[in-house]
């Protein structure tokens, strides 16, 4: 139970006091903060409307002339709301957060490249190294840059496929399939995505540099 900074009544952990409507700075999980049940498939339009509606009730701009305690609660409640919205809105962040909720995490010491990506990762890194070593403004450098640009498209297609896998995995969670199998699958997809993100970032940087040179 926490005490409402405005009406002083003890309340359940919520973001808004049910008695007086004042913001409550309760520590809440992301789903609870948005007043949603724990499901992984999300209607993004409804999520945004919910976020806007709660922002209107909680935002510090609504309490500019209130007592310091209420202003402080509004600030904290809005920070919780905003963080929750960003986490739930982004499918990758949502997946990672789900693992956290069920007491799992992408193991940090697992540096092994996901097997289905191994070949791709190797090839891209070779090409980037070649680009790095090629003399600036040479034909070889331009040729390599063109190849890397093609790679970029391939990486994006692979990323899109992984994101589609992620959505399918989410759907299965909500249909209450075998949790153990789904956890393994979720971890594999998220770790592929993490790898792809790093690769795409490196490729973009290399392309940007070659453009600047």
């Amino acid at each position: 139970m926490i005490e409402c900074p405005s009406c002083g009544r003890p309340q359940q952990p919520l973001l808004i006091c049910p008695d007086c409507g004042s913001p409550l700075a309760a520590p809440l999980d992301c789903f609870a903060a948005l007043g949603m049940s724990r499901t992984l498939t999300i209607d993004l339009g409804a999520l945004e409307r919910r976020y806007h509606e709660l922002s209107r009730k909680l935002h510090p701009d609504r309490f500019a002339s209130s007592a310091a305690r209420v202003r402080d609660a509004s600030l904290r409640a809005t920070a919780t709301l905003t963080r929750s919205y960003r986490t739930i809105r982004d499918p990758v962040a949502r997946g990672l957060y789900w693992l956290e909720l069920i007491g799992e995490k992408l193991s940090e010491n697992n540096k092994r490249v996901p097997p289905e990506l191994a070949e791709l990762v190797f090839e891209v890194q070779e090409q980037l190294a070649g680009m790095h070593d090629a003399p600036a403004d040479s034909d070889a450098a331009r040729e390599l840059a063109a190849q890397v640009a093609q790679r970029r498209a391939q990486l994006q297609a692979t990323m899109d496929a992984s994101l589609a896998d992620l959505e399918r995995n989410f759907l299965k969670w909500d249909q209450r399939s075998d949790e153990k199998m789904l956890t393994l699958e979720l971890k594999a997809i998220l770790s592929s995505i993490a790898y792809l993100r790093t690769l795409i970032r490196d490729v973009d940087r290399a392309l940007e540099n070659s453009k600047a040179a």
Partner: protein
Amino acid sequence: MSRIFGIDLGTTNSLIAAMEDGAPRVIAMGGNHRALLPSVVAIAPDGAITVGERAIEMEPHLTVERDGRVSAVGFAGGEYGAVIRSVKRYMGLGGDEIAPEDRARYTFADLSGPVVRFQIGKRVFTPSQISAEILRALKDGAERALRAAGKDEKVERVVITVPAYFNDGQRQATKDAGRLAGLEVVRLVNEPTAASLAYGLNTQAAGNVAVFDFGGGTFDISILSIKQGIFEVLATNGDTHLGGDDIDRVIVEWLLAEIPDALKLDRHVWNSARMAAEDAKKRLTDVAETPVVVELPGHSIRKHLTRGALERMAEPFLARTLKRCELAVADAKLTPADIDAVVLVGGSTRMPLVRQRVAAMFHREPLCSIDPDQIVALGAAVQASVLMGMQGDMLLLDVVPLSLGIETMGGVMERLIHRNTTIPTSVAEGFTTAVDNQTHVDIHVLQGERELAKDCRSLARFKLGPIQPQPAGVPRIEVTFLIDANGILNVNARDERTGREHSVDVKPSYGLTDDEIERMLEEAVDLGEQDLEERLLISYRNDAEQILGALRKQLGEFGALVDNRERARMDEVVERLEAARIGTDRELIAKLVEELNEVTTPFAERIMDAAIKLALEKKSVEDLS
């Protein structure tokens, strides 16, 4: 509760606005009833302070005397006092962060400390103190304008706008300036976001809006989504050292290319050239070419500037703004085609080339229905009324422009809050000890997008502790980094075991400490009361001088438009005002300024009519030929 006012504290000009009958309006002030207060502060050797138009007259420059001689006038700096312009370029920065071209402009007391300080005579001023003078002038001016309109209202609570790309230190320095001016800064609002409020209020807009804000000293681009009164910033980007000032500088360099370097550095020469450059740049908005003249002692520089040449000079700066636009649109996960409207803000957007390029980039004509010099102040007034609970469902959700993180092992920046995260936001991070019986943990907070701590801006350092001596890794302290709606960082720490709150003494890497602010406030109070009376009197006198000077000039040029009876009435008020001006009764001066304004209004209207008629005649002659 008193009304909240909106202030645009600009690099070149500052304005104050408020809601009147449901619409935001800028408050015109001074003898000439202008809304724009030049952000120029003159400090005389004895410490007397003048702000605005009159301060510009005190700026060191060259003037042509009646006999044709060219002489130097104004305060040159050092022990002679100084005139500070574009103080915003120095806000919240340490000496080592000042751009080289900004460093040469004034005399500084200390360029190694966490805050730059201007040396003026025997006194030293921080940029926050100078900005506070601009804020005071706005406050005084607005209160007088309100009194003249029959409202006895004080300006106490304000919203102040800042460039979206201002970092934590620059924001803090702006808040400090408000505090030093005796104002409660209820909220800092990002300038492009404020502009979108002014725009959205008028049009009941919905969709994706890009705000291109190119002012005197700073550039911002913000991409917003507007939906049912929620103004949600999706991404922002910018450069706090990129503006019209930079274009002026290139023109000055071109103007002064042939004269010896020693003369070039002379502040009188430089300022005269800058004034000529700025005028020429503005003229080239309407004409294709213009003469530019700088009179030097015994020599004059006469050149011709074409719009094409100006555009070539402006091009590199414009290219930088467009690059920032691309980044912002990409960060918003949109393409230029997804943008439904482009709003232009800031004087530099008057350049035809800027409009063309922005239109080409977003594939649509930018909107400029609201005066680009006023739109930010108007938006600040809208936000002020949101804060007073008078705008229904309207709400602004802004973002933090730069990532926030901490320095970790090996000097790497670990990002805790990413740029373009909606604020307020917070993140909690656990810390522990690395060796047995360690009693403190040092934390270095950074802001920026680079990988290494040394390439990011140091925001603050603090020590967590004292921690009870325990084996390494046992203590668990949770530190919460919270960015409030102003984009300013707050830190607190809690011992996870005991639940005890740790006090966190954050030492800002740049900027003023609370103690320093307190000291400045005390000094201000000491000098205070008599200062205020004196300052008010001086500013009333200045107004009188301004209106008298303007009238003299108008009578010289358009004397034929006044009949004898009218002239006699004017002369009578002028005489009384001339007498009052020497005295110390400021209310009397104000009353007579108002009276003279009233008496001369019909005359001013006739001058306007005559000018329009003249312009029309000229045009019809051109049409015939």
